[in-house]
């Protein structure tokens, strides 16, 4: 179990759970994914200068302060310049701090205490891709729309369950299982 939790990819998936509850449409997932990448990469860049001089406990606080500051700053910038278009996403924007913290920790875990910028970017991309994938699936098959545009999708074939949190978590489980199977096959080939 401990070994499983220590895998960055597993941690990223677990960290997605709150976001899955809040984001079930493509636009929201795209914005939240991009926001998470921006915050985590900037955090990694800032912490690069200090990480070597901090103990593990201090690093946690330092990451937390940095992530929260950047999330709030990004929120203010979004609100000041883009809120008219993205009002819906703003209501769950604070979750970005959780996302970014989880992604950062996943990256730190794999880099012996330092958040390697490239690896952090990869973790952020993984997070954004998975969040986007589940949100698009839910929007298309749950609400019959794509980026808010209604699809010529017969109402009888829609699965309203997918739009809710339960449907999102079921979908996340399916994605995680698929990813696990892919990684196992890849590991087998590499061996």
């Amino acid at each position: 179990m401990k070994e499983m939790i220590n895998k960055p990819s597993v941690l990223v998936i677990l960290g997605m759970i709150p976001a899955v509850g809040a984001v079930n449409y493509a636009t929201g997932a795209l914005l939240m994914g991009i926001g998470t990448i921006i915050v985590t990469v900037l955090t990694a860049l800032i912490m690069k200068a200090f990480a070597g001089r901090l103990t593990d406990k201090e690093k946690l606080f330092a990451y937390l302060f940095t992530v929260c500051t950047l999330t709030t700053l990004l929120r203010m910038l979004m609100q000041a310049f883009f809120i008219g278009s993205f009002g819906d996403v703003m209501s769950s924007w604070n979750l970005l701090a959780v996302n970014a913290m989880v992604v950062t920790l996943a990256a730190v875990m794999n880099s012996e205490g330092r958040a390697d910028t490239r690896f952090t970017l990869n973790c952020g991309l993984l997070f954004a891709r998975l969040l986007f994938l589940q949100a698009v699936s839910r929007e298309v098959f749950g609400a019959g729309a794509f980026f808010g545009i209604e699809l010529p999708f017969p109402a009888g074939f829609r699965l309203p369950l997918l739009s809710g949190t339960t449907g999102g978590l079921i979908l996340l489980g399916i994605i995680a299982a698929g990813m696990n199977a892919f990684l196992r096959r890849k590991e087998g080939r590499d061996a």
Partner: protein
Amino acid sequence: MSDKKKTAAGGKTIVAILAAAGCIILLLSNIVLGPKVEEALQSQASGEMTAVMPEGKGFTEVELPADAPATVKHIYSENQGLGYVVELATTSQYSQGDMGILVGVGKDGIITGTAVTSYNETRDFGEEYPLSYVGQDSALADVVMTSGATYSSTAFKDAILDAYTALFTFGDVAEGQKGDDQLIAEMMSSILPGACDALGAASMTEEESPGGNISSLSKATNGTGYVAAVKSGDTSVAAVINAFGVCRAYDMEGNDVTKDSRDAVTEALAAVPEVTEDDIEADKSIAEKAFEDEPELENIEKVDVFGTVTRAFLDKASGNYAFVAKPLGFGNETMSMVVVINDAGEIVNYRSASEMIINGEYYSEHDLKDESAYRQQFKGMTEDTYSQDKAMVNGATITSNAVHHSIEDAFSAFDYIKGGDE
């Protein structure tokens, strides 16, 4: 001091510097971006409100009246005094979350716009339904519920009425006047209760008006009767005719004016089809199945009740009475129930002419595992010993209510026949 301690001390300083830097950055951002954020938020809110009040130039939130309905969340006054925008949140039995509504109401009481800001219903009432409110006054005379999404559309309508309730307390919003036809339509559920659906609304279909003084004629979908709007001088009366061909007349305040409206009653009775032998035979064949021995059923005419009972028979062989009731069940389907009552007023048999629980009726499991035992339990009950809880089945509320109405109405019809409720 050791190296480890030095590192630890240096680390704490770095963390403190990071925290302080974060605070300073956010403080400066707030000074620089704060007004812009505030402006953007106001502009967004104002934009939403302008969508429901296009003439509006700006909006200011006003204090909610103390007795405002719970669905009313915020009220904004248009800055030039054009009217109000009300923010509402409501739910229905098909809600997975709040239904957010914005409605603009001018000082003349006319709805300037509606918008659904969040929708979490499992049944979709469509985009046209909220727009059908635009241009209406508080009477909401021309609003038609969306078929297939009755609960959700009723929740929407009730929320709009709540908005008016709150706005009327300000004293500067005009109240719409209801026409006679609308008053009669609203009265139908109380003057013809047998036609009520699970929501308590009369389920009626509009018939072609026969002309003369009758301006509208509606027929109950379950065959419990008709309601006619009959002009009588400057006003109208609501003439309600039950399945036995008995007519009563009501004025616009809901008072029984049958004795003073003989002409209206005669005209209304002439406008509806008479009870035919075929109608009686059809119900008789349903009633006969509720008897173990071959009954000798005699039709009882002119029973003055307006519930779900559509036919009454006397079994000459046993002296028992059979009442055929047609309450509305799930999905407004008409159910056929037979209640047999003996001369002492005890239920002798209770029978449903069709499957009691309609297939696929309920999302959850219901507790009606043994329908026969459920029906048997009513045997021997009288009007005094029967109560609604006896008919209740967990998970099948609508059917239970239909059963309850059929029994309650059969007792009323029995009382009328025996002369106890004349």
